[in-house]
C-alpha cells in the first residue's frame, strides 16, 4: 500500500516536473522572440515627461501625487501593448508578457510599464508604480541574457532584454505563466 502511494506520488511529481520544464521551454522561446520584436526605442517613449518628473517625487501633503500624474504617450504604449499581446499568444494559453523599464533617475528601481490580461507577474507588487530592482532583472539588464525564474510557487517567468537602436538594453519583458491557471485570479 505504502509503496503504491509512493509510486503514485513519484509519478505525479515527475509529471509536474516535466510539465514545468516543457512550459519553461515554451516561455523561453517566446522570450527569445520578444527580445527581437519589442522595439526598445518605442518603449523609451512610453512614459510622458510629466509622469517621469513626478515618478520619484515625494510630496508630504499628497501621497498619491506620483500615481495621479502617471501618464503615457498613447501611440507608443499601444504599439508595444499590441506586440506584447501577440507574444502572449505565441506561448501556451494564459501566458502574459509584461514590459518592465528602469526608473529614469534611479537605477535601483524598476517599474512595470505594461501588463496584460491575466495580470500575472512574479515580481509586481499590486498597485506599486515602481519598486526596488529585483536582482534577476538587474542581471538581465546588465548581461543582456535571458533568465528563467521560478521563485513564486506555481509561476514560471522568463525575463528577456529589450534593446534600442543603439544596442543598449533599455528594458526587459517578463514572459509569465501560472502552471495552474486561476480563472478568478486578479478579478478584483
Amino acid at each position, binding site marked *: 500500500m505504502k509503496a503504491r502511494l509512493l509510486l503514485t506520488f513519484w509519478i505525479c511529481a515527475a509529471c509536474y516536473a516535466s510539465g514545468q520544464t516543457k512550459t519553461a521551454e515554451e516561455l523561453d522561446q517566446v522570450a527569445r522572440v520578444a527580445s527581437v520584436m519589442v522595439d526598445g526605442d518605442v518603449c523609451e517613449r512610453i512614459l510622458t515627461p510629466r509622469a517621469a518628473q513626478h515618478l520619484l517625487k515625494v510630496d508630504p501633503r499628497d501621497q498619491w501625487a506620483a500615481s495621479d500624474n502617471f501618464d503615457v504617450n498613447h501611440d507608443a504604449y499601444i504599439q508595444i501593448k499590441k506586440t506584447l499581446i501577440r507574444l502572449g499568444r505565441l506561448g501556451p494559453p494564459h501566458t502574459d508578457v509584461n514590459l518592465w523599464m528602469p526608473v529614469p533617475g534611479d537605477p535601483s528601481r524598476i517599474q512595470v510599464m505594461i501588463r496584460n490580461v491575466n495580470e500575472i507577474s512574479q515580481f509586481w507588487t499590486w498597485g506599486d508604480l515602481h519598486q526596488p530592482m529585483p536582482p534577476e532583472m538587474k542581471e538581465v539588464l546588465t548581461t543582456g541574457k535571458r533568465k528563467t525564474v521560478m521563485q513564486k510557487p506555481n509561476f514560471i517567468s522568463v525575463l528577456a532584454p529589450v534593446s534600442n537602436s543603439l544596442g543598449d538594453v533599455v528594458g526587459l519583458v517578463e514572459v509569465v505563466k501560472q502552471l495552474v491557471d486561476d480563472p478568478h485570479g486578479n478579478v*478584483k
Partner: protein
Amino acid sequence: MSARILLSLLLMPLLASAAADLRWLPEHLRPDPFGGIVRADGPGQARETRIELSGARDGYVSCHILVSPQAGRQFTLTAELQGLELELFREWFHFMPSRKEWYPDALIPVKMPYSSVLPDPENKIENQRTQAFWLDIWIPKEAKPGVYDGKVVLRASGRTSTLPLRIRVLSAIVPADDVVIPDHNSYGTFWLNAQYPKSEDLFRLIHAYHRIFYEHRGTFHQLGYGHGGKVAPEFAPELTGSGRTRRIKSWDLYDRHYGPLLDGTAFANTRRGPRPIPFVYLPINPEWPASFLWWNEKGYETEFVNVVREMEQHFREKNWTQTRFELFFNHKKRYKAFPWDGDETRFPEDNRYFVEYGRLMKKAIPADSPVKWVFRTDTSWTMAQQFKELEGVINFWVAGSGMLSLYDWAPKLIRSRGEILWTYGSPPRVNDNSAAITSELLKAWLYGASGFVHWLAVSPGDDPWFQFTGGATALVYPGTRFGINEPIPGIRLKIQRNCVQDLNLLEAVKDRVDREELTRLYNGTKPNDWWTRNSPLLNRPPQDWNNADIGDALKDHRKVQRPKDASAWQRVREYVLKIAGGEA
C-alpha cells in the same frame, strides 16, 4: 435615622440593577456592552419606560433592546406584538484595538424566545454587563393605521421583567421606489471564497448578497473583470473565435448567475417582493469582447459590435428589459494595463476613448432596443469638463461626492438632459456617530442625485470580530461564524434603510418640505451651505491640482455635511413623519 439612610443607600444599587435589567434605546443611540452608550453616540441613557415608535406602512421601525441580567445566569428574551411582524437580532460588539473600545454592528438573526448567558460566550467580553439586541418591526402595507401594543419580556434569575411596546402605525405608505438608492459595490468573487471557504454554491451566495441589500432598500454591484480586462467566467457569456468569427459560445454560467436577478425571481419571498435588479455592470472592458490587439483596427469594431449585438438579442429574448445594463470602465493607467483612465479620468485627452465606445455601442444596439443600456462613468478630477464634453456619450454619472460640491450647476444640467446622477464615497466607520451613514444620502437628496455608491461594502477585514478596523469597507458580514452560510446585516445598514424610507416619504411631499428647516434640524446648516462656492481651486485646470489642494478646498464642506450628533437624523425623521406620515 442615619441607619435607615445607610440601609437605603446600600440597597439602592441592588434595587436599581433589578429594575434596570431590561431597557431600550432608539436606533441612533448604540449601546456598549457595559450598559452605556458608545462614545460616538453619547451622551444618553437607556430607557426603562415604554418603547414608543412611529412609522409609515410598508416600512420598518427599529430600536435596541438592552438586557442586563445577573452575570452567569441564563436569560430568555422574547417580544410580542399582534398585527405587526418582529425580527430580533443579537448585536455583536466588535473590538477596535486602535481605540480599545467595543462598537456594536453585525446583527445575528435569532429566533424568539432567545436564551443565553452573560458574558456572551462567543463575544467574550470581560465584565460584559449588557447584551444588546436590534428589534426590527415590519409594518405591512395592509396594516390598519392606529396604535399597536405589545411587550418585550425578559426572564432571568426566576423573575420576569416587561417593557411595554407601543407602535403608532401612520396612514402614509413608504413609496416602493427609492428616491436615493444606496449602492453597495464589490469586485469579482474571490472574496466570497475567502469569507465562505465551505460554500459550494457560488450563485446562491451571490444572490443572497443581492437579497440582503435589496431587503435593506439598496442595490448590489459586482464588477466582473480586473484592471487588465480578465473576466471571471460567471460574469460574461463564453466567447469563441476571433475577428469576424468572434461570437458567443455559451450563456450557461451568465444565465445561472444573472437570470434570477434580471427576472426578479431571486427576490421571491422577500418583503419588498420580486423585482429585477435596477442596475448591473456589463462585462465589457477594453479587452472584452474585442481584443485590445485590434484596437483602432476594423477587427476591434467587428468583434465588439457582433458580440454586443448578440447580447442585446439575448437580453431582449429573455425579456430582461427593466434593468439598466451599464457599460462601465474601471481601469486606470496607473495600474499599467491600458493607456487611458476609464475610472476617475485625470487627463482630458482620455475622453476620446469614451467617445469611441459610445460610437461602438450605438452601432451595436438597434435604435429600437427595449433593453435599457447606459454608459456610466465614475468621475472626479475632470468632472466639470466631462459633464460638458461627453454630453450624448455618458448618460450615467457617478460623481465623487465632495468634488461635486464645487459645481452647483451640474445636477440641473444632468437632469435636464435626462441623465442619471449618483454620487460616491465610503461607508462611515462604526466609531463615527450613528447618523454618519445618513449624511451622503441626505446630500444626494438635496443635490437631486438618485443614488449613492459605497465603493466597497462587503469587505469587513480579516478579523472583524475581535480585531476590527472600523468597517469603512463593509456594511454586511459573513454569517459563517454563526452557522449562517450567507451575509448578515450591520446596524449601519439598518439605519441607512430606515433613512431611505424617510427620504421616500419626504420626496412624496417634496413641495411641502422646508429644506432650510430640514438641514437646520440635521446639523444647523442651510441647504446652500452644502455647496462649495467660489473655490480658488477652480481658477486652475484640474490637471494642476493635487490631493492636498482638494483637501484644502473641501475642508469646510466635510464639516458642513457632518451630522451634528447621533440624533441628527432622528430630528429629521420627526419632521418627516410630521409632514408626511399622516394620522395614526
